[in-house]
């Protein structure tokens, strides 16, 4: 079991890995917003091409991205089908009671399909090339303006980083408890939904108690290591912008420009 892999980070060393997580996070968010600028075949084609270039730039195997899309395949198809059968307007090709396949329907179904797929691809590009911790750091940076309205951004960031750090620990703990319960005859894999849900209880309770104990221990350790409830802390790990960040941000700026020029007004 790969316990070190939280999220879907895949180690690599292409250009995309050298980019600052803040830039990647911003670019991803922008991408999800600007994709709605696309409204005709040309703009959708541009978006698709741009996304695939970004995917190619990671130099990772296509399977990594297929794994990203896979869990959502049914959702994508279902939404596309709804668009296909329920959009009215344009030329009618086929009709049966309330279902109709129209030219608008086909167009919309394809658009929705593209939109979904590229959003997943681009966010996969970010999550597989950026460590969860870096994403947390980037999110902290994005939240920084909230300090003005007294949101404890530093604390939220510390909480996020501790939460991430304890994911594998809790996972180990779960496996340990599961094995302990199995050795006493617990069965987690058979039976109906209710039986299985019941089987989970002797797993969750010790896990819950353990986490509370861990939390108490950790807070004691943190206090004894001088953690205090104020803002005088400095940072060891900091993010640095580099010339690589012009690449992704510039790339998406060009995409916006192209979309604005070629969309139907």
């Amino acid at each position: 079991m790969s316990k070190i892999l939280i999220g879907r980070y895949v180690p690599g060393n292409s250009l995309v890995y050298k980019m600052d997580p803040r830039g990647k996070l911003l670019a991803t968010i922008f991408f999800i917003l600007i994709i709605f600028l696309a409204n005709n075949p040309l703009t959708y084609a541009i978006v698709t091409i741009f996304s695939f270039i970004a995917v190619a730039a990671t130099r990772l195997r296509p399977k990594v991205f297929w794994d990203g899309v896979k869990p959502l395949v049914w959702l994508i198809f279902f939404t596309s089908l709804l668009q296909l059968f329920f959009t009215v307007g344009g030329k009618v090709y086929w009709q049966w009671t309330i279902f109709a396949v129209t030219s608008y329907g086909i167009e919309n179904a394809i658009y929705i399909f593209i939109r979904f797929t590229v959003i997943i691809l681009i966010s996969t590009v970010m999550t597989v090339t950026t460590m969860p911790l870096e994403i947390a750091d980037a999110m902290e940076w994005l939240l920084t303006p909230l300090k003005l309205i007294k949101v404890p951004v530093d604390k939220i960031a510390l909480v996020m980083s501790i939460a991430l750090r304890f994911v594998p620990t809790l996972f180990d703990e779960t496996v340990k408890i599961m094995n302990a319960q199995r050795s006493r005859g617990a069965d987690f894999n058979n039976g109906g939904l209710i039986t299985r849900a019941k089987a989970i209880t002797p797993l969750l309770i010790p896990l819950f108690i353990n986490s509370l104990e861990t939390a108490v221990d950790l807070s004691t350790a943190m206090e004894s290591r001088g953690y205090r409830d104020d803002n005088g802390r400095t940072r060891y790990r900091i993010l640095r912008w580099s010339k690589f960040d012009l690449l992704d941000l510039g790339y998406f700026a060009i995409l916006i420009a192209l979309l604005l020029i070629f969309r139907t007004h």
Partner: protein
Amino acid sequence: MAADSIIKIKNVAFTYQDTKKPAIDHISFEIKRGTWTSIIGHNGSGKSTIIRLINGLLVPDNPDEASIEVDGEKLTDDSVWDIRNKVGIVFQNPDNQFVGATVADDVAFGLENRGVPREKMLKIVPEAINAVGMTDYTDSEPASLSGGQKQRVAIAGIIAIKPQIIILDEATSMLDPEGRNKILQIVHRMKQEYDLTVISITHDIDEASLADQVIVMNDGKLIEQGTSSEIFSQTELLKKLGLDVPFFEQIKDELLEQGINIPDTVNSEKELINFLCQLNLSK
């Protein structure tokens, strides 16, 4: 070695919430600078409580009569952060004290808390990591480290803040023998290099017998304080308190029972072996 006392504890009592029986029952003792002290006692004897009182994680029941002094500074609400700069604790569970996402982050945690500028941290952190031999793991995540390696990182985190006192709160009890020996070796070396005072709370009697001074606790009271040979030769007392007796003391006892006269000067495994070999020769 200066002979002054780095820790002075006077008349300290402490009771946990929701319990009637005091965990610490009016204890007083002193610890000399630059020594290695072991605190032994069975579970619930108050060993861990007393060290949590030393760095202000817990506050005595009787703040007016009790006094805790560390490195000449009395523990008060104002001085508690100063004292925490002087005392570093390595706790029992390797996982539950690893705060950072990576080894370097964790070592930096104490420095970050103290507002040390980043340029200084960039120098101190690798030094501290190197001191415990973890340089190859600088960017490793805790999940990929063994218990012993995590405890080494914990020691590095403490060394980084340059304390006077390092406390091992059963820090080796969750480790395998190899990990345990490595940790003890490192602490010994750190003690020499940085002129530290070491307090080790332990169940491992062989670890305790290496100390300059041993404190025996039972039911929140200090039962005995003395050099390790003074303490461990009192096998009856140790057995009564439910504590283990070091292996060589057990052998010595058995031999005495067999009528073999072992002089009082024999106080370690090595001395015992020497004595027995000579005994063999003289026959």
